[in-house]
């Protein structure tokens, strides 16, 4: 465990007195007083290696020059960084490093932001005494995304250490000895790793650069915009760099944002989807069955008229709206306001319905918050972490880094419940770091959770105060878990009594604990109940409500959290407040100067049903693509085809947009201002990096213009004006500081839950899932998120397609052997509903009996799937199905 020290040390650096915490390194202490000590190998994220010898300083009473990057401060230390001896050493180290350096700055992409270049200008003469032959490495094709030029390498090993210490990937290693040391990867193929771009970012010279922007720029040509990534819910701060409206590169400054400068492949290499040639550049109207391009005025006037007509004929209740939670808060806020006021319908929903809303509902129910009560910092400092149903490395990689940091740097206990086998592969695997891993089958995660609760209650790890505070609650839960037998739990999950008890003990006894749950829970039946059970686990162990503890549901899309808070949900008004909440309606009416329609909301699947029945006539779809997302058997295509008016605001002509009557080109996140709320509940600024592509416009602007034409003007000058209104309407949007202040659980709500709230669905929640018995030749097909894609948006990103451009069926080696399937072979996957062909890839981390296919490329898989609709939250679940897999001859 990391010890937080308050002890301080006084020292003098170049005559300046400074007081720093004990354990601070001299180089950091110097930075505090503005003394920058040159260095290559040091990086605050990494353990010191002291190999470049650039940061040598004089320290009184020490015999030789000392490396300031590896020397901790001590009381009374006197450091000198600018004496002639020190300057001489800087010069000499640079002379050594430059001896073999090719000095090819004119063709090096690092030129202009290269540490070696900068220090050379500062310390060395312009001519070199080195007249021998320079060392030359054979040029290698490294990978489609990362370029290496080892002749430029200064062997600081920052890339290698980053890849190991931060990413836990270990894709890079030094090879060769002495001057012949070069950075390589393992195997005789091109680099095959997580492509987080960390090595590109951390290289102090031009040895490792991005191929996506090779030779295209000099740093001073680039316009920078600090904004937020549009892929997953981690909400990483990125800096988009553009040259003349062309996206050149993305990076993230060290320490910046919630990601502290770390990125994943999607963030670092996935930016080019914004300028994909297939972007919609002009509005389109369907005429004689064809979508034809028209000017904005024509499209909007046509649309306004059509809306008004339809509303007159069928009433406002014939309208529904569906929004993507990739949109900004401003877009989403205006979307629901437009639907509720300009149209007059509460029938709105967002893609948060697929899963994230389940978690928010459970949080509201048990603790009265809709956000995490913990932060990323709490994850890093947690004594114990419980990960349920999340292959975090692939779905939420940066939250994954926080988990890795907690374990690797601070020795946290990690309990994982996820269908992953611990195995070394090209991607890091959180199961490898786990202290208590339950490789349960998808669908049985809830049973493992019940097992843990049983182990806590029966293993004597109950919080002492709780029994007094809520005896009935404890007794009820004790009775429930008492009815579950260990053998039943084991036969369902494969988790033994002793393993569960050990994990429960470690979790309960840790000083702080955070539960992280992902799509494996949130997008499977009973999601809200399982989240509630996990909150029970926190309550029972006494972690609930304690500072540094909490439950952290991971959002799949970047603004799932924001969509719900903006009230783009059937059951919520902005806030979120229940749609039936009279006080909230009144407050909103005060701001809006108009009444919220009295009607009730409608969820995604019910919209599909009503459209099929002809009850819905018009539908606004903002950035969402239900046709490609939902299984074919839901009949979504046929339902949408029955609409009189389908309007799509989109970046691309998606499967849904192809059915639309009006298609309006929207701007991507890179072209607009606004805010995103990450899964942690942190509201962050999105800034425009390039001008809108073609004639596209931000979604809110489209809605604003349309509302005016419809005679209900919702006018705003810019996104900030909408944000001002959001601020006055929704709590939690008043502060946009560098670190989030998590809400504390509402004591009254918790009390109400403990007194009676828990009881209503106890029987459903505390029941083992009935595992379907399947034939021995059946496999469970599961749609999964992969590291290299997010939704379908990323499948337009050139960089990501270079790593993964199609879906492959991942299967366990034993299952593959049994079917005589070799890696890379074509297979046929079939069940009673349909079949598809794909390539097999064999991965040891996939457990036996399971085959995984990426959801991003699942168009052909849709016929095989069926959706189960949650009876309570109406979320459609369709990630799993039973299939047979055979080799294709």
């Amino acid at each position, binding site marked *: 465990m990391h010890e937080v020290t308050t002890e301080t040390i006084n020292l003098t650096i170049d005559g300046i007195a400074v007081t720093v915490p004990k354990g601070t390194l001299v180089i950091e202490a110097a930075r505090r007083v503005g003394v920058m000590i040159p260095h290559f190998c040091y990086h605050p994220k990494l353990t*010191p*290696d*002291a*190999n*470049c*010898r*650039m940061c*040598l300083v004089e320290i009184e009473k020490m015999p*030789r*020059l000392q*490396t300031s990057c*590896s020397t901790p401060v001590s009381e009374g230390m006197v450091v000198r960084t600018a004496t002639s001896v020190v300057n001489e*050493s800087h010069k*000499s*180290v640079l*002379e*050594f*490093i430059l*001896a*073999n350096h090719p000095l090819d700055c004119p063709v090096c992409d690092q030129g202009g932001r290269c540490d070696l270049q900068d220090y050379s200008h500062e310390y060395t003469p312009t001519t070199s*005494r*080195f*007249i*021998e*032959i320079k*060392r030359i490495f054979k040029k290698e094709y490294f990978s489609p995304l990362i370029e290496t030029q080892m002749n430029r390498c*200064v*062997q600081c090993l920052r890339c290698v250490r980053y890849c190991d210490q931060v990413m836990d990937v270990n894709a890079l*290693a*030094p090879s*060769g*000895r*002495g*001057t*012949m*040391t070069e950075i390589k990867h393992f195997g005789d193929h091109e680099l095959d790793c997580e492509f987080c771009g960390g090595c590109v970012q951390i290289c102090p010279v031009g040895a490792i650069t991005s191929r996506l922007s090779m030779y295209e720029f000099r740093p001073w040509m680039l316009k920078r915009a600090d904004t937020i990534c549009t892929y997953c819910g981690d909400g990483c701060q990125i800096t988009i760099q553009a040259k003349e409206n062309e996206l050149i590169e993305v990076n993230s400054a060290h320490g910046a944002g919630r990601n502290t400068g770390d990125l994943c492949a999607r963030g670092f290499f996935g930016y080019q989807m914004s300028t994909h040639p297939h972007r919609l550049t002009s509005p389109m109207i369907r005429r004689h069955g064809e979508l034809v391009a028209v000017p904005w005025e024509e499209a909007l006037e046509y649309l306004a008229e059509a809306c008004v007509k339809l509303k007159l004929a069928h009433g406002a209740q014939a309208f529904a709206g569906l929004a993507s939670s990739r949109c900004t808060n401003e877009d989403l806020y205006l979307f629901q306001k437009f639907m509720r006021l300009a149209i007059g319908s509460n029938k709105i929903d967002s893609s948060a319905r697929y899963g994230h809303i389940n978690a928010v509902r459970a949080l509201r129910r048990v603790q009265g918050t809709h956000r995490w009560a913990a932060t990323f910092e709490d994850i890093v400092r947690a004594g114990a972490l419980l990960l349920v149903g999340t292959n975090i490395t692939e779905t939420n990689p940066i939250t994954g880094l926080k988990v890795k940091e907690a374990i690797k740097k601070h020795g946290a206990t990690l309990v994982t419940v996820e269908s992953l086998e611990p195995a070394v592969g090209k991607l890091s695997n959180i199961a490898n770091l786990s202290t208590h891993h339950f490789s349960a089958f998808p669908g049985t995660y809830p049973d493992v959770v019940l097992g843990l609760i049983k182990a806590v209650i029966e293993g004597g790890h109950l919080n002492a105060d709780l029994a007094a505070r809520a005896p009935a609650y404890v007794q009820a839960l004790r009775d429930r878990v008492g009815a579950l037998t260990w053998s039943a739990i084991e036969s369902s999950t494969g988790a033994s009594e002793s393993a569960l008890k050990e994990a429960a003990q470690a979790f309960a006894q840790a000083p702080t604990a955070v539960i992280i749950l992902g799509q494996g829970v949130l997008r499977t039946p009973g999601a809200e109940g399982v989240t509630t059970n996990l909150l029970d686990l926190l309550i029972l162990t006494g972690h609930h409500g304690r500072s540094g503890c909490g439950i952290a549901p991971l959002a799949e899309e970047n603004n799932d959290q924001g969509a719900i808070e903006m009230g783009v949900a059937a059951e919520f008004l902005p806030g979120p407040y229940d749609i039936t909440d009279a006080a909230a309606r009144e407050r909103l009416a005060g701001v809006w100067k108009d009444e919220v329609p009295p009607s009730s909301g409608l969820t995604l699947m019910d919209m599909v049903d009503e459209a099929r029945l002809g009850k819905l006539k018009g539908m606004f779809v903002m950035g969402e693509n239900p046709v490609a997302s939902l299984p074919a058997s839901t009949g979504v295509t046929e339902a949408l085809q029955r609409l009189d008016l389908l309007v799509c605001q989109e970046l691309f002509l998606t499967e849904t947009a192809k059915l639309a009557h009006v298609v309006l080109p929207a701007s991507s996140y890179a072209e607009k201002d606004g805010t995103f709320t990450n899964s942690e509940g942190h509201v962050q600024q999105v800034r425009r990096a390039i001008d809108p592509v073609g004639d596209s416009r931000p979604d809110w602007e489209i809605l604003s213009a349309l509302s005016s034409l419809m005679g209900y003007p919702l006018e705003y000058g810019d996104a900030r004006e909408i944000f001002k209104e959001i601020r006055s309407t929704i709590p939690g949007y008043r502060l946009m500081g560098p670190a989030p202040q998590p809400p504390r659980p509402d004591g009254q709500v918790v009390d109400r839950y403990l007194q009676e709230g828990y009881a209503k669905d106890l029987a459903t929640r505390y029941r083992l899932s009935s595992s379907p018995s399947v034939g021995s030749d059946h496999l469970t097909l599961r749609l999964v998120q992969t590291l290299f894609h997010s939704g379908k948006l990323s499948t337009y990103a050139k960089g990501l397609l270079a790593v993964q451009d199609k879906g492959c069926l991942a299967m366990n080696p034993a299952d593959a052997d049994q079917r005589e399937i070799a890696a890379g072979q074509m297979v046929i996957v079939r069940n009673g509903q349909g079949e598809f062909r794909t390539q097999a890839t064999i991965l040891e981390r996939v457990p036996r009996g399971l085959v995984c296919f990426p959801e991003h490329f699942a168009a052909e898989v849709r016929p095989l799937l069926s959706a189960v609709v949650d009876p309570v939250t109406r979320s459609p679940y369709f990630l799993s199905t039973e299939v047979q897999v055979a080799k294709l001859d």
Partner: protein
Amino acid sequence: MAKYEKILLANMEQPGYTGSLADYERAGGYQALKKILGKVQPNEVTETVKKSGLRGRGGAGFPTGVKWGFLPKDYRGPIYLCCNADESEPGTFKDRQLMERDPHQMIEGCLIACYAIRAETCYVYIRGEYTLATTILEKALTEARRAGYVGQNVLGSGVNIEVWMHRGAGAYICGEETALLESLEGKRGLPRFKPPFPAVVGLYQKPTVVNNVETLANLPHIINKGPEWFASIGSPPKSTGTRIFCLSGHVKQPGNYEVPMGITLRELIFEHGGGMRSQKPLKAIIPGGASAPFLTPDHLDVKLDFEAVAQAGSMLGSGGVTVMEEGTSMVWAATRLMEFFYHESCGKCSPCREGSAWLVQTMRRILAKRGRADDLDTLTDLCKNIAGRTVCAFGDAEVAPIMSTLQYWRHEYEELIEQAEAANLVQIEMAGAKQ
């Protein structure tokens, strides 16, 4: 011939001594272990070793008992002993003989050290090329395990000491104690920066002592005959005991000679080594392995103890004494050593990595009569800029041959450079004549 009492080589010089467990026991082996196991407190063993004045025989000469004393007090958890058998210093071959001819002596030393520092595990990190020594040690370890000297509950004392062999993979740097630990952990053998020292954070982040084979082999004798006896041998108070000098080069009888510390170079070379191999007089001496600066015939009366050799501007190092006769090119000798260091520089620190490549190229150029007038200044600068600026002592070592040959035989460099310049001049004249 037995002028001095031998300690380490005594057994193996007995006729018919095979180094087997039976032979070793017959010669009084494992008595020291029996004497202390469960009878003498571990810290008292450390005190005994401190009292004996035993200093490390690997090169740095750090007092062994003091090194042990750096282990954290009141620490409960694993402590490791690593026996450094990665003997790779050019001109050094004493550990090899100790391991091949009397393996149990070293093993007993390891066991005593383990007992003293409360280590339950000892790793013998042996040079990969020492295949014979590895086989012999493995066999000896099997014998010792069967006899109950090694393993769980050693000789019924309740003390557990496991000894494992680990073969190196051919890197000189892995003889450096922290690089050895990295290599032992399965990583690339690169030195760690210090502090923390291995005694605090060593193998697998646990307190660790790394001792040389010869150092450890001395332990049974110190226990058996007492620290006072040991301290009286050699050149007390600071250089006690004997030293096995590995005499090589242009002498009549090269080989390992165990003599008390403090005899002169002259005695070693001319009495024990039988003098120079031919009529040519002595020209240069490396007194302590390739890392030690060269000495000249003027230093023949320097006493072979740590202090005296250091005072003469070199170091006692690993005990490898290489002798060169008149007629040897010192530039060639320094280049040859530089090539070794260039080949073995691990590449961690910029000055050593880049400097060794630079130095070796310049040396080769001078030797090939393509030197330039300013090369000697550059060489001197580079050497100064490497020494003392690297993580481990390799940086200091690699410049020793060049620095010392430049000091004593600078004219040899100058002659080669003059010849190069003369040749250049001829070429320029010829080029001019053609026009």
